[in-house]
C-alpha cells in the first residue's frame, strides 16, 4: 500500500467522522465550524480525484461563502429563544430515521450498481476541444458544449436573489441589505479590508482568466471578488447598495442577459440556440464570462448580505 493510498484512506475517514460530528454536535456554532472544515477537506478529496475545478468551487462556496452564511444564521439563532425549540414526537422521529436509512440504502445500491467502466463523454469533450480555442475541458463543457445548463444556472442565481429580497418587510423594500457594520476605522479589520482587496481582486481576475486553459473560471473568480466586497462591507468602509439601484440590477442581469442574447443570435444567424460561429467562439465565450464574473460576484455578495433591512430614506 503506497503512502498516497494511506493518505486517501485517512482523509476519507476524517471526512466521514467530521460529517457525523457535524450532525451529532448539539451547538449550532460548533456544527458550523465543523461544516466549514468539512468543506475544505472535501476540496482536498476533489484535488486527489484530479478535479481541481470542482475543488476550487467547493473551497470557495462550501468552505468560504457557505460558511459565512451559516455563521450569520448561527449568530441569529443564538439570540432566539432556546425554549421555543420543540422536540417532535417519537413517531415522527422514527419515520424520519426510517426515511433517512432508506435514502442511504438507495444511494449505496446506486453506487454499487454503477456500470464499470462508467459511461463517459469525457473523451468526446477532449477530442472536440479545438473547436473553441480553450484548453481547459471543464470550461469547454460549461461554456460551449453544455452552455444551456450554465445559462440556466445563472438564471437560478437570479431567482435566488429575488427569493432573498422578497423576505424584506414592506417599509424596507428597495432599501439596503443587511445591517450597517460599524468597526474601528483604525482597527485591524479596517486595515485588512484596505490591504487584502488589492491582492484579492488580482487573484480573482487571475483565476477567471486562467480558467481558459487551467483550472479556474468565472464562478471561482467571482466568489473571490464577492468575498473581498463582503470584507470591505463588514469592516464598515462601505455600505451595501440599495436593492432599488438600477446600476446594481443591471449588473445582476448582465451575465444571463448577454448569454441569452448570444444564444438567440446563434438561433437567428447560425444553426442552433447558443451555437457560436467557429471563428468567434473564443471572443464570444470570453465576453460572456466577463459579464458572468460581474454577475456572479454581485449575486454571491448580495446573497450573503441578506434581505433589505433599512429603507433608503432614514
Amino acid at each position, binding site marked *: 500500500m503506497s503512502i498516497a493510498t494511506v493518505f486517501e484512506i485517512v482523509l476519507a475517514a476524517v471526512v466521514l467522522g467530521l460529517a457525523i460530528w457535524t450532525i451529532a454536535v448539539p451547538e449550532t456554532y460548533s456544527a458550523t465550524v465543523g461544516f466549514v472544515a468539512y468543506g475544505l477537506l472535501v476540496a482536498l478529496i476533489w484535488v486527489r480525484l484530479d478535479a481541481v475545478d470542482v475543488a476550487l468551487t467547493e473551497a470557495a462556496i462550501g468552505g468560504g461563502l457557505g460558511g459565512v452564511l451559516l455563521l450569520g444564521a448561527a449568530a441569529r439563532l443564538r439570540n432566539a429563544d432556546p425554549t421555543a425549540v420543540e422536540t417532535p414526537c417519537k413517531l415522527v422521529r422514527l419515520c424520519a430515521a426510517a426515511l433517512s436509512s432508506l435514502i442511504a440504502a438507495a444511494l449505496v445500491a446506486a453506487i454499487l450498481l454503477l456500470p464499470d467502466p462508467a459511461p463517459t463523454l469525457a473523451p468526446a469533450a477532449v477530442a472536440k476541444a479545438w473547436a473553441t480555442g480553450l484548453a481547459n475541458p471543464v470550461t469547454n463543457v460549461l461554456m460551449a458544449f453544455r452552455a444551456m445548463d450554465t445559462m440556466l444556472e445563472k438564471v437560478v442565481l437570479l431567482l435566488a436573489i429575488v427569493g432573498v429580497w422578497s423576505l424584506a418587510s414592506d417599509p424596507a423594500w428597495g432599501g439596503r441589505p443587511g445591517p450597517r457594520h460599524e468597526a474601528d476605522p483604525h482597527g*485591524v479589520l479596517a486595515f*485588512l479590508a484596505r*490591504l*487584502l482587496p488589492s491582492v484579492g481582486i488580482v487573484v480573482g481576475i487571475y483565476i477567471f482568466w486562467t480558467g481558459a486553459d487551467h483550472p479556474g473560471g468565472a464562478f471561482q473568480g467571482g466568489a473571490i471578488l464577492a468575498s473581498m466586497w463582503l470584507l470591505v462591507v463588514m469592516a464598515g468602509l462601505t455600505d451595501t447598495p440599495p436593492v432599488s439601484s438600477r446600476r446594481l440590477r443591471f449588473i445582476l442581469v448582465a451575465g444571463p442577459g448577454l448569454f441569452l442574447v448570444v444564444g438567440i443570435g446563434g438561433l437567428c444567424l447560425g444553426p442552433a440556440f447558443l451555437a457560436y460561429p467557429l471563428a468567434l467562439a473564443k471572443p464570444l465565450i470570453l465576453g460572456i464570462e466577463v459579464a458572468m464574473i460581474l454577475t456572479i460576484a454581485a449575486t454571491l455578495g448580495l446573497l450573503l448580505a441578506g434581505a433589505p433591512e433599512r429603507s433608503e430614506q432614514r
Partner: protein
Amino acid sequence: MSLARDMMTIVAVSAGAFFFLAGTVGLLRFPNTLTRLHALTKADNLGLGLVVLGLLPQAGSLRGGLKLISIWLLGLLAGATVSQLIARTARQGGPAP
C-alpha cells in the same frame, strides 16, 4: 544536486509538521484563549513557513515558487489579523477567556 534538494525538503517539511503538531497540542492543552492563540500562531506562521520553504526546491519554476511564497504571506496576514480580532474580543469580556 537532486539529493540535496530532497534532503532540504524532507528536513524543512518535517520541521513544519512538528510545529503544526506542537501548535495543535497547545491549542488543545493550554488553559485560556490568549495562550491558545499563541500556540496557534506558531503553527500558522512557522509551520506553514517551513512547509513552504521545504516545497520551494520542488516547485520546478519561478512562478510556482512565487505562488507558494504568496500563499505563506497571505496565510501570515490572515492569521495575524484573525488572532488580533479574537484576542480583542476575548479581552473585551466576550466569551470567557
